[in-house]
C-alpha cells in the first residue's frame, strides 16, 4: 500500500470515533490537501474497498479498511511512544518523526517495539488509544511467552478489535484481548471479563471519564486507562 493511501486511512481512522462518517472537508483540512484531490483519492479508496464513500456525506472505513487503518495507526503511535519515552525526543516533534518512520516499520519490528515498551496503551502526544495488535492472543503474557514461535506460526486474528474506550453508549461486544500487566488483567478476569464474554457498553462518562460496562449481570465502571486496554470484537 502506498504511503499516501496509508496517510488517508490513518486520518479517517483518527477522525471517526466509533465508525462515524468523516466529511471530506475534515480530511482535507487535517491532511492539508485541496478538497478536489481529496475527493478523487477517496473514490479510489472506495473502489479498492477500503472505505464506503457517499458523495455529500463522507466516508466510513470498511472492515478491510479498518484493519489497514489500525495497523498504520498502531505503528504510528508505537513509534511516538518510542521516540518520546526511550529517545526522549520532545512531544511536539514525535508526530512528524513518526509519520516518516511508520511506513517502513515491519510487522515484526512493530511487535518487538510493543514488547520493548511494555505494551503501551496510549500515545504520548494526544493520549489516544494505541490499537491492539493483530496477533491471536488474549493477553500480553501469552505474547511474551509464545512470540518466539515466529509470526507465521502464530497466525493472525481475523476480526478487528476496538477498545471499549472508543465505543458508543449501548454497543455490544465480545471480550477478545486485554492489554497490560498481570495484576490488572487478573482483576478484570476475576470480575468476569474473560475472553469470549459478551458485554455491553452502558455509558461513557463525559470528559474522557470511566466506561460503564454490563457484564455477567453486573455493572462495572472502568477508568479510562483501564478501558483503553480492554478490546472487543463488535457484535453485528
Amino acid at each position, binding site marked *: 500500500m502506498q504511503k499516501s493511501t496509508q496517510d488517508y486511512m490513518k486520518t479517517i481512522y483518527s477522525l471517526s470515533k466509533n465508525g462515524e462518517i468523516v466529511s471530506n472537508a475534515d480530511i482535507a483540512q487535517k491532511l492539508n490537501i485541496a478538497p478536489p484531490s481529496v475527493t478523487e483519492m477517496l473514490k479510489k479508496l472506495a473502489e479498492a474497498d477500503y472505505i464506503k464513500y457517499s458523495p455529500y456525506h463522507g466516508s466510513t472505513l470498511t472492515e478491510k479498511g479498518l484493519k489497514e487503518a489500525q495497523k498504520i495507526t498502531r505503528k504510528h503511535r508505537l513509534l511516538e511512544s518510542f521516540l518520546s519515552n526511550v529517545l526522549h525526543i520532545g512531544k511536539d516533534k514525535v508526530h512528524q518523526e513518526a509519520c516518516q518512520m511508520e511506513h517502513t516499520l515491519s510487522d515484526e519490528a512493530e511487535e518487538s517495539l510493543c514488547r520493548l515498551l511494555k505494551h503501551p496503551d496510549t500515545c504520548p502526544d494526544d493520549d489516544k488509544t494505541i490499537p491492539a495488535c493483530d496477533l491471536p492472543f488474549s493477553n500480553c503474557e501469552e505474547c511474551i511467552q*509464545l512470540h518466539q514461535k515466529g509470526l507465521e506460526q502464530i497466525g493472525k486474528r481475523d476480526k478487528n478489535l476496538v477498545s471499549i474506550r472508543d465505543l458508543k453508549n449501548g454497543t455490544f461486544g465480545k471480550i477478545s484481548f486485554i492489554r497490560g500487566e498481570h495484576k490488572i488483567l487478573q482483576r478484570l478476569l476475576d*470480575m468476569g471479563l474473560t475472553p469470549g464474554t459478551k458485554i455491553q457498553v452502558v455509558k461513557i462518562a463525559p470528559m474522557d471519564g*470511566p466506561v460503564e460496562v454490563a457484564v*455477567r449481570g*453486573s455493572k462495572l465502571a472502568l*477508568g479510562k486507562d483501564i478501558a483503553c486496554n480492554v478490546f472487543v470484537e463488535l457484535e453485528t
Partner: protein
Amino acid sequence: MTPQNNKPANSKNKTDLADTNKNDKEFIFALAGNANVGKSVIFNQLTGSNQIIGNWPGKTVDRAEGVLNFEGYEIKVIDLPGIYSFSTFSMEELVSRDYIALEKPDAVINVVDASVLERNLFFTLQLLEMNAPLVLVLNQIDVAKNKGIIINKEKLSEMLGVPVVFTTATRGEGIYEAVKEAVKIANSKPKHKQLKYHKDLEEQIDKVQHTIEKEKLFVGYPSRWVAIKLLEGDIEITKLVAEKSEQIIVQLNAILTEFEKHHQEKCFSTIASERYALASSIVASSFQQEKSAHRFTDKLDWFATHRIYGYITALAVIGGLLLWTFFVGNTFSDLISQGLNLIYSVDPEMSASAPLLSIIFNGFWGGINAGLTLIIPFVIPFYLLLALIEDSGLLTRVAFMMDSIMHKIGLHGKALIPIILGYGCSVPAIHSCKIMETRRERLLAAFAITFAPCSARTIVLFGMVGLFVGIQWALLLYVVNLVIIFVMGRVAMKAVPGKSTGLIMEMSSFKRPSIKIALKQTWIRTKSIIYVVFPIYIIGSALIQVLYIYDILTPISNALYPLTVLWLGLPAFAGVLLLLGTVRKELIILGASAILGTTNLLIGFTPIQLVVMALVAMLYIPCVSTIAILGKEFGWKSAALISLANIGTALILGGLTFHILNFFI
C-alpha cells in the same frame, strides 16, 4: 457463657477430635463474600453489640469479630474482608484465604448478592475448591425480586452441593435459617461434592495433584487447591511449595509449558474462564430474569450519570452534605452550649485567683465542653447524611462522574469517598483510604485529606472569619482551599514516584437507604472519633491553662516573633495559638478567647489578621491525631514529610496573603 456451664457434650457428630480444648457447643463461623453484598449488615445482625473491631495481626486490614449466642451454642463470628477472588495477592485476599484454609472455621457463610449471582458464584467456586464448610446465603433478595429475578433455591443447592438460604439482611429476614444451616454444617462437617471443570483443565489439575500427593507434600492447604493455585501461577503458594520440593515445581513447569503451548492461552486465564463457565452454567439452570418494567432506579441512574445533570447531582451531593452539616451543626452546637452553660460556665477570671481549680474547671471542663459543642453536633449530622448517601448508591455515581477530574491529581473516582469524609474528620478519612488499591494512591489521598477543611477547621474558619469579617470571606477561603487541594495534589502526584492504577468499581444498583443501618454506621464512626478526640481535647485544654497560668506563653511568642509578626503580620500571641492548634484546630479559637479574655476576637485582631490567621490555621499542620494515624498507616517519615508540606504551604500562602491584602486594603 463459660464452657463449664454447658451441658455435657453431645458427641454424636464429633469429627474434630484433635481439637480437644474446644467445647463442641462452641463454634467459629466466618462471613465471606464480595464487597457490598451486605456482609456487614449480616455481621451486625448476628453479633449485635458484642463486637471487637481491630486489625489482622501485622496487617492494615480491618478485622471484625463478634459473639453470637444461638440455641445454646456460643459462636464466634469473623467478618472477612470483601473480596472477589483469591488471586490478586492483595492483603485482604491473603488474610481471607489463610484464615479459611489454615484456621479452618467450623462454617463459612458465603454471602452473595442475589441479583449478581454469576459474578458472586465465581468466588463461591473458589471457596469450594478450598473445601470450606459452606453455607450459601443469597442476600438482597428484595432487590433481586424488584429486578424480576427468580432463583430456584433447591436447584442451586443441588448443583453446588451446599445449603442455600435466602435473606434480606436489612430486614433481618432469613438470618435465623442461615445460622441454623451453618450450625448443621458445623456439626456434621459433610464431605463436599467435587465440582469439576472442563476435562482439559481437570487433567492438568489431576496431574499436579497426583505429583503433590506422590511427593507427600503438605503445606496446610488441600492438595487439589494447591494444584489449582500452582497452575494459576500463584506466587505465594509456588514459593511455599518450592521451599519443600523442587521436584514438584519442575514437573509443574513442564505441565504448564505443554498446556500453554497447546492452547495458546495462559493457564491462569483458562482457569478464570473455566470458573466462569461453570458459574454461568449453574446460573443458567437456576436463575431466571423476567423482563422488568422500566424502573424508577433506572431513571435515577440515567439522571445521576448524565453529562450535565450528573455534574449537578455531584455538586448537589457534596455541597448539600457540607451545608446540611453546617446548619444542623450550628443549631445543635448553640443548643448544647446553652445547656452546658446552665450547668457550669467556664470562668476566665478564675485563673488568677485559684490556679489549680482553674486547670480543673476551665481546663478539663472546658475541654469536654468544646468536644460536646464543637465536634459532636457537626460530626453526627455529617456522618448520618453521608451514610444515607453511601447506602443509596449515589456516591458511586458521583465517583463515576468525578473520575476524570480526580485523575488530574493522580487519583481515581473512588478517592472521592475518603476525601469527602475528610470534610468531617481527617482521622476516619485517612483510615478509609484503605479502599484505594496501592500505597501510592492511599498516600496521595491522605495527603489531599490533610488539606481538606475538617469540621474543626471549618469551625475556625467560620468562627474567626465568618463571624467577624463576613461570611463571603469565609466562603472565599473555602474556594481557595479547593484550589490548594488541587494544586498540592498535582505537586504530590509528580513528587511521589509510580503510576496510578485505574478505576475498577462496581456500580451497585440504587437502593432505598435504611435509616436504622445509617444510624448504626454513624454511631460506629462517631464512637471512634470520641475515643480519639475527647482525651486530647481535655488534656489539651488543661494544658492551655497550665501554660497560661505559669506564663510560659511569652517566651513562645517571642521565639516565633519573626514568623508570626514579621512575615504573617499577626499579633505576637498568635505563635502560641498556632502551637495549641497542633493539638486540635479549634483550640486556636479557644485559646484566643482565653488569652483575650473575651469571645470578641476583634479586640485582638484586625480583620486582615483574622483572614490570615484562619488561612494559616486551615493549612499549617495536621492535628496530632491526624499525624498519629498518618504515622501508623504510612510510617513516620511520610507523616513528617506531609506535615512539612502543610507547614510550608501555610507559611508561604499566609505571608503572601498578608502582604497582598495589606497592600490593597
